[in-house]
């Protein structure tokens, strides 16, 4: 996984509440057995006018020239709700997104993003409203996220502090192999399994 420290990039506004993972990557693209190549299908039903994905919807934000190269997404409440499909962060990352800013994120989606080097920045609704105003007024303007300092810098240089769980931060900063991290504690897993045999033998 690519490590995350500081990222500055063009921000695109996606002004919809409850963007679910079906909307991020519809089911017809889940039949792959690889992790790659999902970016071209990101937001398929919003992004294209036809089922085959050959005609772009000019009204969709990522089809507008200034926002097309965006790597920061500014979104609304409950982003990533619904299905647990990790194909959603795979598609976002494959398109090029490294940072998503919203007032709230769905739980499983948030876990999945950490595993894929995407930084989720949760800010108060009024701060997100301000970001929407800025990126709509000035298409193509950049937002920067500094993970070590936990600061998001808006297009006008305003700084917004954000919270992140220490472990998620470490994983992102180091691009950590999480299975490797857990396996450092394999002795504890073995201890647990032997306790299980003693205490709840029907499960061991």
């Amino acid at each position, binding site marked *: 996984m690519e490590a995350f420290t500081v990222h500055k990039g063009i921000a695109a506004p996606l002004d919809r509440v409850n963007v679910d993972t079906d909307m991020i990557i519809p089911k017809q693209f889940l039949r792959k057995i690889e992790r790659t190549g999902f970016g071209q299908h990101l937001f398929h039903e919003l992004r294209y006018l036809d089922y085959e994905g050959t005609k772009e919807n000019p009204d969709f934000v990522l089809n507008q020239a200034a926002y097309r190269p965006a790597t920061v997404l500014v979104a609304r409440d409950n982003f990533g709700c619904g299905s*647990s499909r*990790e194909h959603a962060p795979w598609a976002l990352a494959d398109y090029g997104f490294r940072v998503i800013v919203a007032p709230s994120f769905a739980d499983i989606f948030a876990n*999945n993003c950490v595993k894929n080097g995407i930084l989720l920045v949760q800010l108060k609704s009024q701060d997100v409203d301000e970001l929407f105003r800025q990126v709509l007024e000035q298409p193509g303007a950049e937002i920067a996220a500094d993970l070590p300092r936990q600061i998001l810098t808006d297009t006008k240089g305003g700084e917004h502090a954000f919270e992140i769980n220490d472990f998620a931060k470490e994983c992102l900063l180091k691009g950590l192999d999480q299975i490797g991290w857990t396996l450092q*504690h394999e002795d504890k897993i073995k201890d647990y399994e032997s306790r299980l045999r003693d205490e709840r033998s029907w*499960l061991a």
Partner: protein
Amino acid sequence: MSGKTMYDKIWDAHLVRESQGDTAIIYIDRHLIHEVTSPQAFEGLRLTHRKVRRPEKTFATMDHNVSTRTKDWSLVEETSRIQMETLAKNCRDFNVILYDFKHQDQGIVHVIGPEMGITQPGLTIVCGDSHTSTHGAFGALAFGIGTSEVEHVLATQTLQQNKSKSMLISIEGTLGFGVTPKDIILYIIGQIGTAGATGYVVEYAGSAIRALTMEGRMTICNMSIEAGARAGMIAPDDTTYAYLKDRDHSPTGDDWEEAVAYWRTLPSDPDAVFDHELHIKAEDIKPQVTWGTSPGQVTDVEGTVPDPDDFTDPVARAGARNALEYMGLKPGTKISDITIDKAFLGSCTNGRIEDLRVAAEIIKGKKVHKDVQAIVVPGSGRVRRQAEREGLDRIFSEAGFEWRFAGCSMCLGMNDDQLTPGQRCASSSNRNFEGRQGPGGRTHLMSPQMVAIAALEGKICDIRNYLPKSA
């Protein structure tokens, strides 16, 4: 010091390593996998030369993209077939038990886990599917995970987890005539919103919950994710133990006694403190129908489609406006005036034998409306066989329902069952998202009983006007 919640107890019993300023490691008792979210996890294992640590704790089935029309491999669409063949190969290579497409007990992962007794109280159960919350109905801690976490569980039989906050939702009283478990959970989501339980594990309690069968409890826990919860759970009791006795994977003999004694220690202590509590009167709940594209956009069946301008919150207003445009509905339309093109009875929410029984009772001797295509998809091979033993298949077929094999079918449109653009469906499933049941498809979520009635009448109906009171 206050007592422990059931969540606290199960959490503590599964701690492999406590959080030391980083994250806790918890042990996973049961891992369920299916064809869609597992291929990349096995690929990851191969690339890092890792094994499945405890293959006997993992159970695989094929459900999301199987056809429910045929058991003929040669008719399965190619990308789906590749995904199913990949699962079969992965299970062979890594020694995992698989209930494949042709196995008589194949079915939706959240239907077969409980019916085989794989699901038990006090367990941690995960699956790469958000509706894993279903298994919480047995007093288990069960939740959906992503594919990287599937790989993590395969390799380590553990997960890295941060503890969630706890929420108690109690429903006291007696459910009104025609009100079902589906209405309870839709009502709750309507009250707290689709992010209302984000960051929480929810425990459902109260006399209305205690009175439910296991099937009803599963329907409620299943849709916890639709309120944003990490998991939903219900304390085990005699109803739970009676359901589990003599199932394939249930403990037997002395082990059974020992297990039940342990299960009885699981319910939350009377003095347990929850981070948040919500108290609902069962009598306030009426039959529910969704009008929008999010499960929280729901109202009573006797209600009307709301006017977006009546929402004070600008974001909710915009959401309602989008939803009505997509759904092709006008504010003020009576819910009971909405006509439908399709009726779908099935899914991990409402595809169990009890759901089929209540629906069959309604349609017995009647005919599906001439403008409606209706399908009934049993949740598993066992549900299908049980229904056939009871003659339910004939009742459905004679009424004009298509009688299918087990699978996820039209709940998510990953297979050959899909709505076409603009088609409107009365659905017993769990998500009314845009395009969920097929691009441009319009979904109204409701109880299986109300789906059955809608199929007969060609429109959404209030079950309370339809059933004789004695039913």
